[in-house]
């Protein structure tokens, strides 16, 4: 099994979620994060003083999938998250040794 992690722009969350559902994903875990990257941070103003905020709000998706499905899901995320502008985010894939469904104790791909 693999874990696909995607960091995307917040206003794309709905699209990405729908795309994942469309790609047959049965579950995912999402969290708010702050990103730093090529996308320059923005300037904020505090009583006349300008300062740069390096971190940009992003949303992180984590999806555990069967090895066979990785490519399709990555593609689904790319398609739904892409605006073409800097800061669209990253996807990374890592290996998962074991997965357990707490409710049933099922293991491995059965637990997905």
């Amino acid at each position: 099994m693999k874990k696909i992690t995607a960091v995307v722009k917040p206003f794309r969350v709905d699209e990405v979620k729908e795309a994942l559902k469309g790609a047959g994903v049965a579950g995912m875990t999402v969290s708010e994060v702050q990103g730093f990257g090529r996308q320059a941070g923005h300037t904020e103003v505090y009583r006349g003083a300008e300062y740069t905020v390096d971190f940009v709000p992003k949303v992180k998706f984590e999806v555990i999938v069967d090895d066979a499905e990785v490519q399709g899901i990555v593609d689904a995320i790319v398609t739904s998250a892409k605006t073409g502008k800097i800061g669209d985010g990253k996807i990374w894939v890592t290996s998962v040794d074991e997965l357990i469904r707490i409710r049933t104790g099922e293991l491995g791909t059965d637990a997905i």
Partner: protein
Amino acid sequence: MDSGNIAWVLISTALVLFMTPGLAFFYGGMVRSKNFLAMLMQNYFAMGLLAVLWVLFGASIAFGNLGDGGWFGGFDFAGFQDITINSKQFAAFTGGIPDPLFLAFQMTFAIITPALITGATADRLKFAGYAVLIGVWLLVVYSPVAHWAFGGGWIAEMGAFDFAGGLVVHINAGAAALAVLLVIGARKGHGKEPMAPHALPWTLLGTGILWFGWIGFNAGSALAANAIAAQALLNTIIAPAAAMLGWLLVEKLKGKHVTTLGAASGAVAGMVAITPCAGFVGTGPSLIIGFLAGIICYLALFIKEAAKLDDALDVIAVHLVGGIFGSIALGLFADSAVNEIIPDGLFLGGGSDLLVDQIVAVAAVFAFALVATYIIAKAIDMTIGLRVDEETEDIGLDQALHAETAYNNL
């Protein structure tokens, strides 16, 4: 000069002033967090810009040529010329409170009315366009309409009444909101994304502040600390209370859940509907008007669906419909025993004269505000622009327009 009356209008002015921050939070809790500060900004900025414009021109347009039965108050009092602590320009009309106080009290109405529009247009107004919009609107729409109904203009002369602003405030702002919506269109993602309120506790806080301030709005409009003010105050508590019950009842009948936002919305609907009636109707009618307002404004939520309008925070259902309902209800429930200046309404045996006048006034204010605001909004949209671009909408107005973020936890 009666010090008790002055004390009451002084504090009422403060109360109504406090309503605009209340409104800012009432609305602000319902928008998405990336647009929260922009909503607050629009409302607070109204306090800055409109107070100044009121002094410069608005007050004169509204209350010049007092009682002329006409359309426009002129510029005699522009810049508060001839308004001093000893002047008596409005004494006959106001029962003797100082001129600067009367105009300050009215100023707070002139501030909150344009601000009401921001609920409909949430999340997509350009700041500069907004600033021009409310500035022009104050002078071209609000102040004349205030003259018609509050300043002894043609509506007052015709025989229609408006105790504290059903016509001048709620229908006026509601129709304006509708007009601006026709110009700017829906939020990006409207109908596809849920756009849930980002933090209802702010909305509830705003509701509490609004209710508190509305006592000054309605009971203060008696311009005296007397029994009419007392009745207006009572009505301003019980009509919203009954409206809350009405709204929640429909919620319960329709779905499984009664909601906090429903309680807040119902209460505000009741405040709106009782506004034109507050010092003109008795206790029982207040309960009825409130209760019906809660039901009617809830049902009016369907209008935006039907008309495919993205009235983000339901200014049409609550202010326009609530204001129309209250203004017409006055034709039914007006009670000369409560306030001798008004004839009895239809249900109190006074015949349909008042009712007809009320309907004419409602139609006139609605039509005028709709058309005039549409022209103003369209003109702004075609010149400096009234709506932000897509990227700004995506990022959020707070960051894009104001270089600020509402919540910074890291």
